[in-house]
Structures are given as C-alpha cells and as structure tokens.
C-alpha cells in the first residue's frame, strides 16, 4: 500500500533526511520519501502492518523535530 501524507511545519531540510532514515528502519516499511519542499511524506509499506506502522512514523517525525506533524487522515 502506498499513501501520501501532508506534513506540517517541516522546516529543515536536514531533518527531512533524518526522518527518512528513521522511518525506513521501521519494520514493514518498503520505501519512504520525505519531500521537504512539497511538505509531503510518501510511504509505501506492507498492508498487514499498516496500522502498526503509522504511529511509529508519527513518533519518528516528532523525535527529529518536535514541532513537525504528519497529518494522518
């Protein structure tokens, strides 16, 4: 499954790269792109683990930049 999420207050390019690395390490994630300029997160992950992955993605983002949020619809 692949989904694009909007991000809020992602304001450092280096942080985006760090988030990308952290999220890529989450189990079940197949590919991830954090697009700093478009403020988007493109996540591709196994369907079965989708529900477990999302909170971990959110946590990874907060850890890198406490002010940044992923808008999980």
């Amino acid at each position, binding site marked *: 499954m692949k989904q*694009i999420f909007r991000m809020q207050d992602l*304001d*450092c*390019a*280096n*942080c985006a*790269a*760090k988030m990308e690395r952290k999220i890529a390490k989450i189990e079940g994630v197949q590919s991830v*792109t954090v*697009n*700093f*300029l*478009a*403020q*988007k997160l*493109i996540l591709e992950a196994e369907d079965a683990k989708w529900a477990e992955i999302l909170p971990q993605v959110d946590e990874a983002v*907060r*850890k*890198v*930049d*406490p*002010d940044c949020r992923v808008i999980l619809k």
Partner: protein
Amino acid sequence: MNRLSRKQKWTLCRILVSAGLLILAVLLHHLILPHETRKWYILLPVYAIPYLLIGYDVIRKAILGIVHGQLLDENFLMWIATIGAFAIGEYPEAVFVMLFYQVGELFQSIAVGRSRQSISDLMDICPERARVVRDGIEIEVDPTEVAVGELLVIRPGEKIPLDGVVEVGTSGINTKSLTGESIPREVAPGDTIISGCVNQSGVLHVRVSKPYEDSTVAKILELVERSSSVKSKTEHAITKFARIYTPCVVGAAALLALIPLFILGPTAVWQGQWLKAALIFLVVSCPCALVISVPLSYFGGIGAASKRGILMKGSEYLETLARVDTVAFDKTGTLTEGSFRVTEVTPVQGSEKELLMLAAAAEQDSNHPIAQSLRQAAGEGPLPAVADTEEIAGRGIRTVIDGKTVLVGNRSLMESVGIEPPRDARIGTVVYIAVDGVFAGSILISDAIKPDAKEAMDELKKSGVRRLVMLTGDRDEVAGAVSKELGITEYRAELLPDGKVEALESYLGDTAGALAFVGDGVNDAPVLARADVGIAMGALGSDAAVEAADVVLMKDRPADLAEAIRIARKTKRIVWQNIWFALGVKLLFLALSVFGWTNLWAATFADVGVAVIAILNAMRAGR
C-alpha cells in the same frame, strides 16, 4: 511583507528586537557600567535577555532533542556553541551567533516558501468545480464525481475540468498553463479538449471522455507532485555527506578542546584560543546551506521548465539531461509533422493558387491521400467544375476543365503524352500538371519538416551535444534527405520498432555522457524507456507518452528540447557552485580558527552569509 507567514513575522520581530537589545547591552557593558561593576553576575543577565528572546525555541528543541536521543541536530549544536561562548565570557558573541542563526533560518524559510508558491501556481490548473447537466438541470459538482459520457457546460473564463469532446459551441482555448503557449487554440464541435486549459470566448457543451483520475489535469498534477520526490544522485550524495560531516566537525571540536587540556593544562585551555576554535567548529558544523540549496536548485529548475511546458519526472532526469551528449530522434511526428501535405507549388506560369486549384479540381472525387492533401491545400472555396474525368490507373487523372484537357499525375503520365518535365531530386511525391498537352507545373507533397526543427538542431549543437542521430522506419532516401536538411550527421533508416531499440543500444555503449531519445510516444515507448532519458514530444493528451517518458515536452516543438537541456545545465552549474562555495568557506573558517586567525563574529557571519548566498543562487535556477 504580506507574503510572510505569522511564524515568519514573529521571528523577524524577535530578530529586530533582540538585535536592538544586543546593541543596548553592548553599550551598557562598555560605556555606561563602571569598570569595577563589569562582573559576570551583572553582565550575564544583561545579555541573557536578548539571548533568550531570540533563542528560546532553539533551546527548547535542543532539550527535546536530547530527550529523544537526537544529539547533533542543529538546535543542539547552536545551543552548545552559545553556552560555550557564555562560559568563556564571550557574551555578545553568544547572542550574535544565535541571532544570526535565526536570520539564516528565517531567510531559508522565506526562500522555501517562495519556491512552494511557484509550484502551487502551477497547481492552479486544478479545477475545483465542474458544471454538469443532469436530468436537464445544470448542477455544480466536484470534478471527481463526473462520470464518462456526461455533458459538461463550460462558460467563458472557466477551467476545463475534464477531458472531453465538444458537442456544441465554438471557443478559443487557452492552454498557457499547460504548454506555456499564449495563442489560444480554436475549437469547434467534434474537437477534443483537454482539462486544465481555460475556456476563453464561448460557452461549450462537452461530452466527458475520461474520468477525472485519468484526465490530463490529474496526470500532470501527479507528475509535478512526484517530480520533487525523485531525488538526483547529487542530492543523495549531499545528504550522505551531511550525515558524516556534522559528526566529524563536532568530533574535531571536541578534540580541539580536549587535546590541549591534557598537554597544556586546564588554565591554558580556558584562556587560550583552543576553546574558541572549538566553538567556531560547532557553529560551522551545520550542513544546512548545502542540504537546502541543492534540492532548492533542482526544484527551481523543474519549476522553470514546467513554466515553459517542459515537465520533468524528477530532479534525477534534470541531472541526466545536463550530461546529454548524444540525442537520438524519431523522425515522423517528431522532426516532421507526421502528415502529408503540399509543401511546394511550382507553376511554369501563372500563380501557385491557380495551379493548386486545377490539381485539386481534377482530384476532387478521389479518396487517395494525395488527393486529400491537394484539396486541403486548395482551401474550402468551390473548385472549378470538371467534365469527362477519367482515372488512368497507376498514373493519375485526365479531365476537362473550362474546355481544356487537364492531366494530373505522375511522371509517366506526362511522358505518355510526350511531355518531359524537369528532373526532380526532391523527397516526397511530386504531382505533375499539364494543360492541353503543355506542362503547367508541379506540386510537391511531403511530410514537412517542423518549422523550428533546424533551429533546434543548431541550438543543440551549440549547447555542446556532440552527436545527433535519427532513427526511423522510413525509407533510406527520405531519412537521408531529412537529416541532410537538418544537419543531422547520422541516421538509421528502415528500422522496425525493435530495430530502433537495438540501434539505440549500439549508441548507448558509445557515449561518454548520456543519451536522450526524443519520440512522439507513438510506438516508441520501449525506446523511450531504454534511453538514459526518454523525452516525449507533443505529449499533451497522450497518456502512453506521459507514462513512458522521463521528460515530457507539452508543446510540439523540437526547440523545447534545447531549452530543456539549457535549463538542466544551468541548474547543474548552480548546484555545483553552491556545493563548492559553501564547502570552501566552511573549510576556510575551520582552518582559520585552528590558527586563531578568526573569531566567532566572523565565523557566524560567514556561515550564515554562505547559506543566504547559496539560497539566493539556488533561486536563480527558477528563473
């Protein structure tokens, strides 16, 4: 100023106020306070006010970073550097470092905002509403809710929400937002129209031919959105570099403070240059100027290209395009119009129009493609009446117009009545005309070369493309003539579709740079995919081409390819300028600080200055 967000305005406000407070603090420190009261417990609070005002968010994020195990992030580094400056008694420097760091951040945030704005301008093509006729009533719905086969009503000034075919009405369609072309396209019933364009002059009733997800506007938006996510090799390399750069510099800073501590003892370190050098290292350790300016340049380049109707599927292709030294072209539909039409009329006497009317009249009942081209060229008006028309198989037509016997056909028809037309080396089909047994002239019908193709080839050569190749399924003589006219040195003719892939591969192995293939997307998807960068031309409305290509030229103009390469090269130049400039200045200050030849003021100024200049330079790519 109105374009700043609330957060940006607040940061600006803090910068100005704390800069003012810093100046006051320095004045108080050096001019007003008596010498004996210049103690740390008096000065520290004086400088702490502007410091906390400008740096509270950085400090907060730094502490949260430590809690989350995020050491070495830029907030943490700035915090440590400024705390260190306070510790060795460099109070104004500490405030200045924080202040200037925020100036850099604000600048970066504004620059990024601007770039985003240019992309959302592009997103302007997205239609919000569609007016559709249901049960005889016009209602407004979301474009995604419209089904194929429904009837849309589009008023002047409105965006076309879905692809479809005009049923009623004529109008001019402005395709500027898609193609950069400002001349409106005239449409009439039966014409296909594309979503994302603006209807200008008349009300149109349009039968929807594709659901919203498959419509041109949705495809283009998806492409643009995705384009900034496909990262180039340089971007990956810079991100990787940033990952090792920061720890290395911070490690070096620690060594600078610790090694002299063991050799020279604590007092020497506390008063000497080493701690200062270590702090300068921390200030310069943030790789932000590099990390931000590279994608910003590519983003700008992609934006500049899309304004001209050139869509890139990612910055990777922008980078490949800059390396292109061989361009292979498909012929029909790419360099030539792809349709046969009258390209030359050569009367022996009288006007071109008369000769054309004569030929068109003689051929008026024929369905042959040549006859169609003749009629098309003659225009819509009534043709002279003909009598006793007789078709001479394989040769042409004999007819009577105004009492004169007219022969229209090939060379052997002329020879059969004893006429010897002048020899002709032109490529295409030549139609000869004789009136009452006298040769009247000839008409050349061929697949015309696009008007700007020659100019495009010259531009490509000028821009440093070493090799231009034409791959075509057409006959050798036609290919030879077209490439000669365009100045293309190599061609492969009479290729079957898979032969094109093989031919391309032989060139792939033979280039030092990258190979681009340009096709119209018809039958050449495998070749587009095989090239280093596949370019589809005139792709507006052709899904297959948009799917297969890496770069899409919306307009049917070969010259846009040269433009695309120009933008790619400019962007690449800017990216490398920024990389060398930023790295150079950082390394210079690292070196200067080790020898004690610089101070925190200069290092901070240089580091933020580099970031600002790199960002300004990156914005240049968008123009």
